[in-house]
């Protein structure tokens, strides 16, 4: 498959501080990728390098096989930056026309006007007079001005209400359906899980995990078993702890929970030994927990 983005052993430092350390990944065409991580994890720095705004201190960054600052790359790329800013004293319509003129094959004006989601009156207002949310919609439309093949969104939904957020992701999905490659950063886990088909989990400048939301879960989340005791709970507990697959056992909300590295092994052992259990459930951890668990682990490791 064609690689739209290739990052090879990329590090970036600011003075003494290393913001990104030894990051490598490739992104293939038509994918939606979430760069997920807490604040200060190196997400924005990584995006800035992909956009050619920052040079990596070490390693190489290639977009469409070229340096990100290459004009041929910029012609095929669009981005919505975290800081939304507009040129003052230009009307929304004029601003869109101006940015369109920078690209060899721009998106049709009608599509862009629609992408702003603004009414006729707002399209004729000075861009700097728009509200925060409207400015974000405008910057989304500006990102599309060149009809790009690759789109970057840096924390695109910060400050948007639920409706606006849903609308935004609907549009992004529409773009992905057209075959555009999308990379966005977020610290909302739910968003990464719902929207992306791949998650790059950043923490403290390191690419901590890379995979589909399911894979990340499988790797990071410990599954657990829970059931009701049909006989004597204390006896059952002792029996459980004797099984090699069982790591721990605790009671919560009237149910007996068992933590284990391998739920299949544990279940087999329970039934083979004929333990008195009923109403068995396998609990899948949520990505939220995985995320917290991972970042916590790393913080502990760092201490």
């Amino acid at each position, binding site marked *: 498959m064609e690689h739209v983005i290739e990052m090879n052993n990329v590090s970036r430092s600011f003075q003494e501080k290393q913001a990104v350390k030894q990051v490598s990944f490739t992104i293939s065409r038509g994918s939606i990728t979430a760069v997920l991580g807490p604040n200060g994890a190196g997400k924005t720095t990584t995006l800035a390098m992909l956009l050619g705004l920052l*040079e990596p201190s070490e390693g190489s960054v290639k977009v469409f096989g070229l340096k990100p600052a290459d004009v041929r790359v*910029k012609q095929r*790329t669009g981005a919505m930056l975290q800081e939304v*800013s507009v040129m003052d004293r230009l009307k929304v319509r*004029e601003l869109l026309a101006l940015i369109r*003129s920078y690209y060899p094959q721009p998106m049709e004006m009608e599509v862009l006007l629609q992408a702003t989601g603004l009414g006729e009156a707002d399209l004729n207002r000075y861009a700097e007079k728009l509200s925060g949310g409207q400015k974000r919609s405008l910057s989304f439309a*500006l990102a599309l001005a*060149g009809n790009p093949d690759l789109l970057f969104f840096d924390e695109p939904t910060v400050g948007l209400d639920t409706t606006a957020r849903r609308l935004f992701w609907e549009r992004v999905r529409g773009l992905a359906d057209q075959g555009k490659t999308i990379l966005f950063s977020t610290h909302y886990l739910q968003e990464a899980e719902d929207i992306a088909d791949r998650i790059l989990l950043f923490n403290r400048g390191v690419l901590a995990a890379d995979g589909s939301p399911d894979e990340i879960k499988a790797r990071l989340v410990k599954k657990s078993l829970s059931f009701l005791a049909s006989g004597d709970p204390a006896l059952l507990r002792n029996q459980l702890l004797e099984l090699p697959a069982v790591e721990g056992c605790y009671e919560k909300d009237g149910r007996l929970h068992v933590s284990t590295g391998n739920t299949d092994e544990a279940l087999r052992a329970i039934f083979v030994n004929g333990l008195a259990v009923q109403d068995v459930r396998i609990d899948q951890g949520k990505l939220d927990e995985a995320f917290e668990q991972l970042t916590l682990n790393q913080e502990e490791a760092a201490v």
Partner: protein
Amino acid sequence: MMNPMIAQCKAELLRIIRNPYYVFWSLLMPIMFYFIFTRVVNTGTDDTKQWQAHYLMSMAAFSVMGSAIMTLGVRLVQEQTQGWNTFIRITPLPSSVYFFGKMFGQSIMHLFSVLCIFAAGYLINGVSLTAAQWLLSGLWLLAGSLPFLALGTIIGSMKRVDTASGVSNVLYMGLAVAGGMWMPLEIMPKLMQKIGHWLPSYNYGDGAWAIVAGDSPSWKAVLLLLGYLAVFMLLSVYIRRKQEAV
């Protein structure tokens, strides 16, 4: 399909027309000064007509120099700090086109200022020059503003609007006074005169003064302004390169 160069120039022009604040301030002080020093205060010159034309050129130069250094500088810093520049950098627009658009907008603004101040001279004192003198002095004022525009781009590379507006104010007033725009260099101490003759502001004014006195601008003035233009441009490019490398 609109050419990005034309689109950029058009946008810059629109922005200037819609923001008359800058134009107003670049005209108010020179025209007031002109009125005071040619009508109210008796400067005791022998040739009143000649002084009125001379000082008109001083004030036109003063106005254009101000908007080249301050307006351009401060606006560049504003666009930088508000993040608009970052957005432009991720589009395929070459930074040369972006700068050209800015220069174009500024030049139109300068043209407008020169016309207004010339009109003020005519209305206040009935300054009369030959058509060639009006035209040539106007052209000199426009072309001679280039080194100051380059200086404006250096101011424009500063990080904060406050710093930029402070520094550009001091620079502007200092250059104007030491370059003989407020009062002729001849009445200043010898040392000040010596320094003044090498300043870009003096040589900028000097070309226009020569034209209204019936001469043509000296080679020294032309060469010095070109020299300043080259130095300021190199400095500006160097600073920007350095900033981008961070």
